[in-house]
């Protein structure tokens, strides 16, 4: 087998060859794992492209080699991530019953198909939907549930039919893990409304495999449901865009509430609401935050840049704002009183619901008729919209405000989330903290 220096010299010679080769072959797929076992050390790497590899170690190209100059480090890192991709078990945190208390949980890594990628999860946001699911508020929990659908990771494995990403790409995964891709909704890029859509957690893929979410060290996902994260977006902060971000972006765009000069009301100032304010201002709109909590005013105006703030319990303030808004985005999931909200809208105004109260609110039909108002619902967005939203956020420097927490803080985080005690989204530092649990 020869000694290490011999292989290093082969490697160095091949790297420059392969730089040229790789540029011309970047879209070719394939990922083969080669491992050399030599006494006490292991030389590993990934070869991309179509090569047949002999057992006598025709090592061709190592995408990770170029980044790690230190011989010992790359060897170790490579080994860890290579080993990780080959692991058959994944460490996650799961809720086992309606208490919603999360604790460590091992589950099988699913078999990868040709167009799958595997991510090492770096960060995962905590969404209110995670909380509702683990507590079975929607009566659909299939315990044990590993939640988490605002996932940021690095690609460590690429299926041989996967074209979108390469090893080491930074990607995001949101709510969706699968859709039929053939129905009318999917053909319009509305995979979010596909009747056969599958969530990345608490659900089953078409082949029956259960899905586990981003409160875990690794995720296998079909490449269609991952988006590229531009380099200028800080990985530790961008996770909430994958659900909260798209949830507000898609309906604002769809209903023409992305035009300079229009007046947008944002009801609720949490994970979704604060991003709606940021998007609204990026569009050049006038933004008014409507909240039941007067103490949020300073933050809304001074930190987030909202133009004005209305306390929803103040009849005087609500009356003064009557008939002034082109649209209102309701991001809260608390009880909803429609009449006062509808009164804030101009004629033809739209009330967009992205949060749903448990109890259906009363609909004063006359209030809709008399001024041609609309109430509409929206749920996340399609994959094309998701990438578009991330790219827009990158251009406009729209970055969520987060509180980064360790994995073992997650139960406390859930309690605080229930009370709305977070500015404005928790993000779990998964990669650095999950293995210590």
């Amino acid at each position: 087998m020869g000694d290490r220096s011999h292989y290093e010299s082969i490697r160095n010679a091949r790297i420059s060859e392969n730089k040229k080769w790789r540029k011309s072959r970047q879209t070719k797929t394939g990922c083969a794992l080669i491992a050399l076992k030599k006494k006490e050390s292991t030389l590993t790497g990934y070869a991309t492209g179509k090569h047949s590899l002999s057992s006598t170690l025709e090592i061709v190209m190592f995408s990770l080699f170029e980044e790690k100059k230190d011989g010992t480090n790359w060897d170790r890192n490579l080994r860890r991530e290579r080993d990780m991709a080959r692991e058959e078990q994944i460490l996650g945190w799961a809720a086992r019953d309606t208490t919603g208390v999360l604790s460590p949980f091992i589950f099988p890594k699913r078999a990868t198909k040709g167009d799958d990628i595997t991510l090492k999860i770096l960060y995962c946001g905590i969404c209110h939907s995670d909380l509702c699911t683990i507590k079975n508020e929607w009566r659909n929990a299939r315990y044990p549930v590993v939640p988490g659908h605002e996932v940021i990771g690095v690609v460590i494995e690429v299926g041989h039919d996967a074209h979108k990403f390469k090893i080491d790409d930074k990607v995001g995964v949101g709510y969706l893990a699968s859709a039929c891709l053939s129905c009318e909704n999917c053909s319009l890029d509305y995979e979010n409304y596909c009747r056969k859509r599958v969530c990345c957690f608490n659900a089953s893929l078409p082949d029956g495999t259960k899905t586990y979410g981003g409160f875990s060290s690794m995720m296998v996902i079909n490449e269609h449901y991952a988006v590229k994260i531009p380099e200028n977006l800080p990985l530790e902060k961008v996770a909430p865009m994958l659900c909260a971000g798209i949830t507000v972006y898609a309906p604002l765009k769809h209903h023409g509430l992305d035009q300079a000069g229009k007046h947008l009301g944002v009801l609720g100032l949490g994970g979704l609401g604060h991003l709606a304010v940021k998007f609204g201002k990026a569009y050049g709109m006038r933004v008014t935050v409507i909240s039941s909590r007067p103490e949020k005013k300073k933050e809304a105006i001074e930190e987030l840049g909202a133009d004005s703030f209305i306390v929803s319990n103040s009849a005087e303030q609500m009356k003064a704002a009557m008939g002034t808004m082109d649209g209102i985005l309701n991001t809260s999931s608390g009880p909803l009183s429609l009449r006062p909200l509808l009164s804030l809208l101009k004629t033809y105004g739209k009330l967009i619901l992205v949060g749903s109260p448990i109890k259906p609110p009363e609909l004063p039909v006359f209030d809709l008729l008399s001024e041609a108002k609309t109430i509409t619902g929206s749920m996340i967005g399609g994959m094309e919209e998701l990438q578009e939203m991330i790219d827009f956020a990158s251009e406009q420097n729209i970055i969520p405000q987060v509180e980064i927490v360790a994995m073992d803080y997650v139960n406390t985080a859930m309690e605080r989330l229930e009370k709305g005690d977070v500015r404005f989204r928790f993000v779990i530092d998964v990669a650095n903290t999950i293995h210590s649990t």
Partner: protein
Amino acid sequence: MVATENGQTKKALSPEEQHPRKAFGWAVSDASGILSPFPFSRRNNGDDDVTIKILYCGICHSDLHTAKNDWSNTMYPVVPGHEIVGTITEVGQNVRKFKVGNKVGVGCMVNSCHSCHSCKQEFENYCPGVKWAYNSIDVDGTKTYGGYSNMIVVKENFVIAFPDNMPLDKGAPLLCAGITVYSPMKYHGLNEPGKHLGVVGLGGLGHVAVKFGKAFGMKVTVISSSPHKEKEAIERLGADAFLVSSDPIQMQAAMGTMDGIVNTVSAAHAIMPLAFLLKTNGKMIMVGAPDKPLQLPVFCLIFGGKSLAGSCIGGIKDTQEMIDFAAKHNITADIELISMDYVNKAMERLAKADVKYRFVIDIGNTLKAA
């Protein structure tokens, strides 16, 4: 007392004195909703006005709601009626669009502010200062009286020309029922060939929506709680399909198939099963006005990007466009022509939805001065 231009004072005129022209009609005096003969007066024909001898007037469900004070805003005595058709007997000196003898119609509106955002976009129906044909206070401070009467004086801008081939009696209901469905169908894209329209309720509004839908080249499904209406819907009105709203199997089979729904029902009902019929991003247009709030199915809207939109009649320009469209496509309302003194009976039957599909009062021949 009021000041005159030469500095003298004179006694202010009462509403009746301001309106010196004698008129007669049938009015409701209290929440019993019973109509009876009622003499009153109209204003003189101003420079921008036309005077119309009323020949026919449709009975709209809103007339019944107002008669019974269901919306808690009735100013008794009220002379209902806003599906008015007749001939012009006098024109003011500024009138350009009409001349004596023209056949014309008047719908729900008789005036608006002309300066607000809605008026400028020709949506007078959404003007905050809109004056309704009845039960409204006009710009001169007097109460408006509607079409259950022998004549009306109206500003030229709120009068609709009737094409020669449009029969007056069958065209009258289009002035409210017709525009009420035509306007939202137009503005929400539910007027495109090949799209699938659902029509909830087969009454005055619903049957006209079916006719417009077919004229637009759409597939039309009627959704009704009355199974016996199916034959009528398919064979006479030309609907493509019929769903009984209380049949869960039929409703489930039709889930996610409709681009839009025009919901004409003014009784309390469940919206959720109807919302499930919509495709993703589909819209339900509410044109019926239940007097009690309904339940909003939020999850259903969220899990499909669906919308509920309200709509109230349409502007004058759209009303004229609708009448011209109807005339071109031979669309008229299906009516039961009645005499004036049948009106209370007609109101009782209307409350039970016992009419195919609109009562029209033969004012010209049967309304006699008291």
